[in-house]
């Protein structure tokens, strides 16, 4: 019940296109859903996060969509840029104190 499944494993998008990464979870107690971005040779860094009281959160070109009934959430990157090329991880945890559980990661390549 601690699993978070992420897809696709890799994604290639043209500059200006939309990148979409999906995650699904099993534990209905999860109530915190962050996305992390990792560049080569660096540690992951928080990109954007959502809690289940809203269905969507937008920060600049990055949007999280959340579907509580389907137990799914996704990251949309609008107007994708070569600088967005990185590995993206979804994650989930509970406000009651469980550890952060990460998805398997998606390697995004944005071609110029």
């Amino acid at each position, binding site marked *: 019940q601690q699993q978070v499944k992420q897809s696709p494993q890799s994604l290639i998008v043209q500059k200006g296109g939309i990148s979409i990464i999906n995650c699904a979870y099993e534990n209905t107690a999860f109530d*915190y859903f962050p996305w992390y971005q990792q560049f080569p040779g660096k*540690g*992951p*860094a928080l990109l954007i996060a959502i809690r289940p009281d809203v269905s969507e959160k937008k920060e600049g070109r990055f949007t999280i969509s959340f579907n509580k009934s389907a137990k799914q959430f996704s990251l949309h990157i609008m107007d994708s840029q070569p600088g967005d090329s990185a590995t993206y*991880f979804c994650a989930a945890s509970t406000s009651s*104190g469980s550890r*952060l559980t990460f998805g398997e990661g998606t390697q995004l390549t944005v071609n110029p």
Partner: protein
Amino acid sequence: NAGVTQTPKFRILKIGQSMTLQCTQDMNHNYMYWYRQDPGMGLKLIYYSVGAGITDKGEVPNGYNVSRSTTEDFPLRLELAAPSQTSVYFCASSLTGDTEAFFGQGTRLTVV
């Protein structure tokens, strides 16, 4: 503002040797984590701690040990290093389980 500091950045170990990976944070965070990341793979949780004196196993604890005697420090001990422990190790901390996790820069370990 140092954040999460890991030492060393790189290390080569011989099979059977032992070493300690150091991690310290200056944000007074309760939660601390150790992850390993194999090439092209996701983050696997080794151990985590929700406060000083409290530690718990993650997904891949075998071959590792941790201690948390202070809020700031969370060292990871490798006993009898094996080639399978060749990886990049990341330490992270967060105030609670459902707030932003800050990652260190990583330790690249090679066991030969």
